[in-house]
C-alpha cells in the first residue's frame, strides 16, 4: 500500500490536484455549488449591523486572520531571544549590567560564535559571483575549475540568474554521486534530488504534500519529544495533528519502538497518522541512533504504513566513541527489496551545520525515495511556487558534496580546516557534559552528536510555583533569570517539548572553548544561587 498516491488513493491535498495554471474565467476553482449564493454579502451586512464589523475596523485583524498562524511558536527565536536583543541594545547604550556581553547560546549558528568558514568554499563562491577573479592567480586552480563548472550549468553563466525550481542540474548530479559514495555504492537518482532553501524548506514542503483530510481523517505527524520546533510550528501552521513519541532520557535519549507503538495506537483514535519524523543526529538531544534502531524504525514504518522523514542535517557532527552516522537510505536498502522497494522516505541535509556552518546561505537538499510518480510530479509543481532556492546556496551545496580530493591543490588546507572544526566540537561536547554534571541539580546526557546539550535541571518547588503564578513555564522563568543575571541566552526545554514535570534547557556547544568554559562556570554559579534562593 503506497501511503502517498496521486489518483488511486486521493491522499494528496485537493488544492494541489486541482491546480491548473489558468485561472478559471467562468467560475471559481473550487466546487462551491453547495454554498448558497449571496450568503457572504448577507453575512457582511448583518455583521456590520450588529457592530461586530465596524465599518472603520481593519480588514486584517487577529480575529479575521488565518487561525492556524496563531498557534505557531518557534522558541529558538522566541521571547527569550527578543529580550536578549533588547539587553544587547541596553549594553550598547551604556546601561550597567552584571555582565559585559550577551552570549547567544540559543541558536545553532557556528559563525556567529567565531567559527571560521572553509576557505575553499568561499573562494569558489567568490569566483562564481565575480568571474573576473578567474584571471587572478591568487586563487588555486581546483577552485577555479569548480567555479567554471558551476557557472556553465547556471543560467546564462551567472550565479545571479534564476535556476530551475528543482535546482541546478549539475549540483543535483553531484549530490546524487555524494549520496552514492556515502552509502557504499547504493545508487541515487538525481531526479529524486530537490535542492532546497535550507533543510527547513524541504521539510515544510513534504509536510504540505502530506497534510490532508479533516477531523478524524486529518493527517497525523509523529515527531520525537523533545524535537526541533520547526516541526511543531509547521504542523500547527498547516493544521495537521502533532503526535508525540517520547525519547528515553534515562537511556541517553534513545528511541524505543514500544513507545512509537503506544503513541501511534493512541493517535489512531483521533486522526490519521501518516508521517513519522526522526531527527538523527538529534536536535536538541544530540543522540546518534544505532543501526539497529534505524532498522527497527524502518520496519515499524513499513508495518504501519508511514511516510518516513529523516532529518539528517547533523550527519557529520558525530563525536562520541562507538557512535556512527547511518543514513536511513543506506540502512533501508541494506534491508532488502521487501523494504527498499516499498518504504517511502524523504531525507534532508543542509549547508547550515556539520563543519561548514553556513546558515546564512540557506543551502540544502532532500532526496525522495519510492514516492509515487504522480505525487512526485505534484511535488515538482509545488516547489515551483517559490521559484528557486538561492543560487549561491545551491553552489555551496555542490562544493560540500564535491569537496577537494587528495592530490588537488586545496586538499590539505581543506582537510586541516574541516578536522579542526569537528575536533573542536567534539572537545566542547565532552567538556560541556563534564562540567554540567558537576553541578548538583543539573544532569546532562552525553552529547553524542549535533551541536547542543539538553541537560535536565531540578527546580525548587518555590521557583516552580512563582513561575506558574506568573503564567510562565518554570524553565522559561529559570532561563529568563539566567539571562538577566549573567547574560547567557539559552532556550528553555518547554520550547522543544519534554515529559510532564521535567525541566530542561538547550545550550549550544558552539562558543570558542575558553568562552564556553566561562559560560559553563557562570551557569554553575547561577544554578547554585538559584537553588539556594528558592529553597
Amino acid at each position: 500500500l503506497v501511503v502517498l498516491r496521486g489518483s488511486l488513493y486521493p491522499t494528496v491535498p485537493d488544492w494541489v490536484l486541482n491546480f491548473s495554471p489558468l485561472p478559471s474565467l467562468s467560475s471559481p476553482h473550487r466546487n462551491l455549488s453547495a454554498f448558497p449564493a449571496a450568503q457572504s454579502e448577507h453575512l457582511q451586512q448583518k455583521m456590520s449591523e450588529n457592530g461586530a464589523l465596524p465599518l472603520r475596523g481593519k480588514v486584517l485583524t487577529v480575529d479575521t486572520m488565518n487561525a492556524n498562524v496563531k498557534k505557531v511558536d518557534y522558541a529558538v527565536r522566541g521571547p527569550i531571544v527578543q529580550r536578549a536583543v533588547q539587553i544587547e541594545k541596553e549594553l550598547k547604550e551604556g546601561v550597567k549590567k552584571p555582565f559585559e556581553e550577551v552570549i547567544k547560546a540559543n541558536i545553532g549558528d557556528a559563525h556567529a560564535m567565531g567559527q571560521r568558514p572553509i576557505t575553499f568554499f568561499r573562494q569558489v563562491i567568490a569566483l562564481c559571483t565575480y568571474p573576473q577573479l578567474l584571471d587572478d592567480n591568487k586563487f588555486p586552480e581546483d577552485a577555479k575549475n569548480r567555479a567554471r563548472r558551476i557557472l556553465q550549468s547556471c543560467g546564462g553563466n551567472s550565479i545571479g540568474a534564476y535556476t530551475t525550481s528543482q535546482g541546478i542540474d549539475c549540483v543535483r548530479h553531484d549530490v546524487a554521486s555524494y549520496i552514492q559514495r556515502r552509502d557504499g555504492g547504493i545508487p541515487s537518482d538525481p531526479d529524486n534530488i530537490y535542492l532546497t532553501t535550507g533543510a527547513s524548506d524541504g521539510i515544510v514542503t513534504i509536510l504540505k504534500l502530506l497534510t490532508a483530510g479533516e477531523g478524524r481523517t486529518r493527517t497525523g505527524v509523529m515527531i520525537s519529544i523533545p524535537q526541533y520546533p520547526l516541526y511543531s510550528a509547521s504542523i500547527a501552521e498547516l493544521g495537521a495533528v502533532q503526535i508525540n513519541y517520547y525519547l528515553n532520557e534515562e537511556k541517553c535519549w534513545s528511541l524505543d519502538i514500544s513507545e512509537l507503538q503506544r503513541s501511534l495506537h493512541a493517535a489512531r483514535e483521533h486522526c490519521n497518522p501518516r508521517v513519522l519524523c526522526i531527527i538523527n543526529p538529534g536536535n536538541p538531544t544530540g543522540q546518534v541512533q544505532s543501526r539497529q534502531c534505524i532498522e527497527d524504525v524502518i520496519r515499524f514504518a513499513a508495518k504501519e504504513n508511514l511516510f518516513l522523514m529523516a532529518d539528517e542535517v547533523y550527519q557529520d557532527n558525530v563525536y562520541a566513541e562507538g557512535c556512527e552516522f547511518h543514513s536511513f537510505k543506506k540502512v533501508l536498502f541494506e534491508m532488502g527489496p521487501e523494504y527498499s522497494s516499498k518504504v517511502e522516505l524523504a531525507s534532508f541535509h543542509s549547508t547550515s551545520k556539520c563543519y561548514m556552518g553556513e546558515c546564512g546561505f540557506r543551502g540544502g537538499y532532500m532526496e525522495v525515495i519510492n514516492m509515487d510518480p504522480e505525487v512526485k510530479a505534484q511535488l515538482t509543481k509545488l516547489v515551483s511556487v517559490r521559484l528557486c532556492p538561492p543560487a549561491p546556496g545551491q553552489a555551496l551545496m555542490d562544493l560540500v558534496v564535491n569537496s577537494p580530493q587528495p592530490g588537488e591543490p586545496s586538499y590539505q588546507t581543506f582537510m586541516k580546516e574541516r578536522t579542526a572544526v569537528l575536533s573542536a566540537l567534539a572537545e566542547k561536547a565532552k567538556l560541556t557534559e563534564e562540567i554540567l554534571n558537576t553541578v548538583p541539580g543539573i544532569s546532562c546526557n552525553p552529547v553524542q552528536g549535533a551541536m547542543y546539550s539538553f541537560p535536565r535541571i531540578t527546580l525548587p518547588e518555590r521557583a516552580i510555583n512563582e513561575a506558574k503564578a506568573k503564567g510562565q513555564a518554570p524553565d522559561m522563568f529559570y532561563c529568563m533569570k539566567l539571562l538577566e543575571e549573567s547574560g547567557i541566552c539559552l532556550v528553555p526545554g518547554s520550547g522543544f517539548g519534554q515529559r510532564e514535570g521535567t525541566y530542561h534547557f538547550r545550550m549550544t556547544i558552539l562558543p570558542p572553548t575558553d568562552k564556553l568554559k566561562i559560560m559553563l562556570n557562570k551557569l554553575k554559579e547561577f544554578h547554585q544561587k538559584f537553588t539556594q534562593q528558592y529553597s
Partner: protein
Amino acid sequence: GVAEYSVIRGRDIGDVDPNAGFNRQTGRVQYQQTVTNKVIQKGNPKTELMGTPVGDRNNWSISNYFYLQVLAACFYPALLEDDSLPLDVKQRAESLLRECDGGSIGSYTDSSGITKIKHCVSQFITRRDGGVPSSPDNIFIKSGSQTIMLKLLIHSKDSCQTGVLIPVPTYASFTLAVEEQGAAIIPYHLCEEQGWMLQVEELRKALHTGRKTCNPVALYICNPGNPTGHIQSRKSIEEVIRFAAEERLFILADEVYQSCVYGDDTEFYSYKKVLSEMGSTISSTVEMASFNSVSKGFMGECGLRGGYMELVNLDPAVKQYASRLFSTRSCPPVVGQIALDLMADPPKPGDPSYPTFSEVGVFAELPGISCQPLKAGFFVFPCLHFSLKAIKWAKKRQMEPDMLYCLCLLEETGLHVRPGCEYGQRKDSHHIRLFVATQENIMEDALQRLKTFHTRFMKEFS
C-alpha cells in the same frame, strides 16, 4: 555565443518549470519536451535558441561590477586585502560584514533581515516616494514570494472561502500560491484595447460576482504589469485605493518591476506614495503590503533571492504574528539581503545602465498581430488574430492555437516565446509573451525570426 533564454532553463516569474512532467493542458507537455530537447541540442546552429545574455559581463557597465565585487568580497573577505578592488567596494563590503554576526555572511540574521539593511531600504523607499516616511519596523526582507502575507490573510472555513482578486492575465506561480493557501481566485480582466488598463468598473463587477460564492478580502495588483507591461497612471491608482477602502479590501501591491520603466511620458507611482497623499481617512486606514525585489530591474539578480515587503497600516497584533511566521523560516539568504542593500543604495554618482530596449513597432507592420505599447516591465503581450482555418487546425491537434503557434515557432526558428493561454486571456483571444529586455542585436534577430515565421504562418492559413 548566445546564452540560453532565462525563461527556458531557468525560472522567470510566471513560468512553470520546464522539467515538470505533469500538466493538464494538451500540448503543454509536448511543448516543454521540445523546449528541453532544444536546450540539449544547443550549439547546433539550426536549433540555436534565442537568449538573453544575462551573464554577458562584457556589456555591463562598470557600476554592475561594483555589485559583483562587493558580493565577492563579502563571500571571501581575503579579497579586501587585494589592491585590485576599488576603495568604495572595500568600504561597502566591510560595513556590511560588520553587520553580520561573527563578521560572516554564513551566520543567521534577524528573521526580518539585518537591521542596517532594513534602514537602508526604508530610506530608499522614502527617497523614491519624495519624502513619504517609511519605518524599518514595517519592512520585512524575504526571499521573494508573497506567501507569508497570503498565509495571514487567507482564513478559509467550511462556511466561507476567502477570496483574492487577481488580474487576468497574470503569472502562474502567484495563482498557485493563492490556491495553495486555500483561497478562491476572483479574476478581474485588464482591458487590452486600452493598453491593458485596470478599470475600476471591472474590479467592481468581479467583486460583486465574487461575493456570491466567497468572502473577498484581498486585491492583488501587479504594477508594472506582468505579462502586460502596463503601468498604472496616478489617477488609476487613486481609484483603486478608493475602491479598496470602500469595499474593505487588503491591497497586495506587487511592484517588482518598478525600476523598468521605459516610456518618456510614463512614470512609476508607488501605491504607498499615492495612498499617503489621499487624505487622512484613507491614508491611515487602507491596509496594504507592497513588494519589491532585486530580481528585476538593472540588477536582474533573481538567483540571489533578495526582496522585501513593506506593510502599511497593519494591525500591530497581526504584525506580531507575521514576525513569528518569519522566525520559523529562520532568515532570508544573507547574500540576497546584501544585494538588496546595493540595490537600495547604489553607488553615486552615475546611474547604473538599464538594458537597452528596442522598438517593437515591427508588430504594426505585420498582419494578424497587434501589440499594446510597452510602458514598463520586461515583456510584451501581443495579440494574435488567427483565421478560422488556423483555429480549426489547432482544434484537430487538440491544442490551444497559441500553444501550437509557439510550438511551431520554436521548431522552425528556435525562437522561444510563451503562449498566452498560460497567463489567462479572454475566451477566443490568443497571445504570445515575448521577453524584450535584451541587447539590441539579439532583439533584432528575434524579431526577424518572428516576422519570417509569422508571415509564412498567416499566409498558409489565410
